[in-house]
């Protein structure tokens, strides 16, 4: 599994992609780095289908 978060300052909006075996499991925009980690934690614990993209600032 590869999780990719775009570069930026901590408060910058981030693009996040979760891939496994060539399949994209989730792709969303997080409002900042902390939000990216929060959403990834939710996806890991509740399933990637449960992820709802957060609105960017």
């Amino acid at each position, binding site marked *: 599994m*590869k999780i990719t*978060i*775009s*570069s930026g300052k901590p408060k910058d909006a981030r693009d996040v992609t979760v891939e496994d075996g060539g399949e994209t499991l989730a792709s969303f925009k997080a409002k900042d*780095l902390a939000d*990216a980690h929060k959403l990834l*934690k939710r996806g890991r614990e509740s399933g990637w289908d449960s992820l709802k993209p957060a609105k960017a600032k």
Partner: protein
Amino acid sequence: MSMTRFPNGLSTRKSIDPFGAYTHPDETDQHAYFNDFNTYVAGDWTITVVGTSTPALTAGDGGLLAITTSATSGDSAFLQKTIASFSFETGKPAWFSARFKVSTLATTAVMGVQVIDTTPLDVTDGIYFLTTTATGAVTGIVRKNATTGSSSVAVGTLVADTYTELAWYWDGKDTIAFYQDRVQKGSITGVAANYLPDASALAQSFGIQTDSANARTMTVDYVMVAKSRR
């Protein structure tokens, strides 16, 4: 120096044991993992990247895995073995050792065993080493909770672009000892009651974050983890 030979075998089991006549120490005594990075399969790892990074084998003696960040401050790349397959408990000693280097000290590096998480620099459960940017100071950490169940000890110092071996030993009773280059640098007691990770599964974890606008590299020679089954 003469060599000690055991042509009839060497056993760790009693004679009445099914493996009593087995001519090697019983491999099932420990659950063990060792990777010398002669080979690397990306699918064996959960890779969390901020920016762009593709960990890859690199030429050099010993089998080497290079993890290079992209060049924005805060960019990082962390690898955690998939699927997590270690837990820790009283009565069962465990061991960890890894040899690696970082290209410069303007980085934060982590190496050890942790619960799988996208923030390996601050996980809730693990026994691991964390380095401090600029100084290269190495801290040994054991925690089952990031605030109330965590303890740490100074272990040593990294030198830029110089390999070091970091190791720890959980005695299965109450103490974790931390080593750098085979020398014990510190220990933490009260582990069983207060700090031993209680997550059901933890994974070999390591990676690097650049703390300046430059690409930085962690080069890993090997990682070894073992836990007694007896």
